[in-house]
């Protein structure tokens, strides 16, 4: 059973760099999938029809990115484990075994993406933080020595450029809209700010001595911060003074929300584990 392979705890790494590449790819995939899942909660419930379509589109883009990344991770895992374990006892991994049969502790997404969608203000502000991160991340990842990751980044870069622009426009529009919208945005910022630090703080799989495959988050932190400050200031919003930042997602230590996301998302696969859909 594929379900019995614990991806998060490859206890016997084939070699460290492969192990790291798998975890890094899964981390990028998990970020995209969980935020895609969250955004799709808006489908059919958006504040206006055009924006219902826009947020669904972003969800689709993110799930598309997640699929490419999981497919790649599955290939890497299958290659790696075939060297060690008899193939017949371990059916191959796929994008779906990785998405539907890992536990919360094995998910490596940042906490930011698993938080509830909140009101439209929380949703667009979270999107803006995340898309700006993805924008600078993919911009660098396009030059990764790993050709597959570079190609995925290349393919996704245009999408996230649009996501960043769309969400920045909404942050400004709502921050500088009415008194109510301003208050709601400030509240959203106060709530979300403590979850932004993790995006740019390297996890174990994001530190690489020679820095050829993985994006060095320190190299994009300044650009991210500048862009965020510029847009928030145009939106007349104040970054909270409390500098405390939450973390843990990259190590598999999540908020209480992730368990609910996974139990809903994984329900059919786990209820009928041998079925094709």
């Amino acid at each position, binding site marked *: 059973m594929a379900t019995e392979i614990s991806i998060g705890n490859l206890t016997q790494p084939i070699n460290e760099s492969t192990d790291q590449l798998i975890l890094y790819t899964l981390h990028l995939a998990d970020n995209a999938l969980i935020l895609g*899942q969250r955004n*799709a909660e808006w*489908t*059919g419930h958006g504040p206006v029809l*055009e924006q219902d379509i826009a947020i*669904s589109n972003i969800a689709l883009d993110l799930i598309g990115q997640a699929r490419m990344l999981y497919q790649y991770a599955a290939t890497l895992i299958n290659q790696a484990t075939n060297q060690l374990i008899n193939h017949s006892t371990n059916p191959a991994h796929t994008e779906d075994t990785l998405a539907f049969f890992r536990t919360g502790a094995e998910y490596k997404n940042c906490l930011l993406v698993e938080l509830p969608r909140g*009101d439209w203000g929380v949703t667009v502000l979270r999107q803006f933080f995340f898309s700006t991160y993805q924008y600078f991340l993919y911009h660098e990842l396009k030059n990764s020595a790993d050709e597959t990751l570079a190609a995925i980044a290349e393919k996704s870069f245009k999408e996230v450029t649009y996501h960043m622009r769309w969400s920045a426009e909404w942050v400004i529009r709502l921050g500088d809209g009415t008194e*109510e919208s301003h208050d709601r945005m400030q509240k959203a910022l106060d709530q979300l700010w403590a979850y932004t630090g993790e995006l740019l703080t390297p996890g174990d799989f994001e530190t690489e001595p020679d820095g050829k495959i993985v994006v060095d988050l320190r190299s994009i932190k300044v650009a991210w911060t500048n862009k965020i400050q510029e847009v928030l200031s145009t939106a007349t919003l104040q970054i909270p003074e409390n500098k405390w930042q939450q973390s843990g997602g990259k190590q598999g230590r999540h908020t209480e929300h992730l368990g609910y996301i996974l139990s809903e998302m994984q329900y059919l696969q786990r209820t009928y584990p041998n079925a094709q859909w």
Partner: protein
Amino acid sequence: MNQEEIFQQKVDTEVRIEPKDWMPDKYRQTLIRQISQHAHSEIVGMLPEGNWISRAPTLQRKAILIAKVQDEAGHGLYLYSAAETLGISRDEMIAQLHSGKAKYSSIFNYPTTTWADMGAIGWLVDGAAIMNQVPLCRTSYGPYARGMVRICKEESFHQRQGFEILLVLSKGTDEQKAMCQDAINRWWWPSMMMFGPKDDESPNTQQSMKWKVKRFTNDELRQRFVDICAEQIKILGMNIPDSDLKWNAEKKHYDFGQINWEEFWNVVSGNGPCNKERLDARVKAHEEGAWVREAANAFAEKQKQRAHKNSVAA
């Protein structure tokens, strides 16, 4: 010839009626009612399928389902725009939906309780919608006809995707087969009702046919639907839940059983299993979006004033 005669002559000779053309008031009202009802159906129709996005069984199915529901939102947009050319605003139409004055297709008042419902809806509900809508691509009102061309292309895609979901289930485990048959059992009769009352109880049909807003009667379209589904079900190896369904060699059509019209009128009048949930969900989304729409308007207004100030200063 008077205006009415000129109008009817255009209709008779298949010249499209355009927004600026003269048209009888009743024609306009009929179209507003029909197009807005159609638009509302697209929007409310997002809810039963949206219900399974978070639980779709594979990532590919999830993506296809989001795209499908999003297509329906797009259909709603085209149709609201087409109705607006007749002199009613989207806000007014939405207010009519929320107050209960405007109707939407009753099919969406049924619950989606299993994944197989995503297949059954695509196959049967989108399938029935196509039967109704393909003739509308040639309907007499130009903006409606053009909108329908685009919509029909996507609907037939949805229909194939739905059938494919069922096909996979029909070849799956025993549990999946049971799920598949159960969904067909639940969606078959409500889909048959989508064509509306029998011809002799459909008072508006005559006039709509004369205006070429409608080109086939309810019963004609329903028969066509039965004939197609009765063949397609064989590929699935499932059953249509109608013991009277059989091929009639003389008529060259399938005979079928009695529709439960009492259920139909009950659901139309608000007593379906999900009427309240569907409308509540729409109203909630609209009300919770109010501050967003207000802020967007306020911001646009500020931007305009800023641009004006700048141009004055320059």
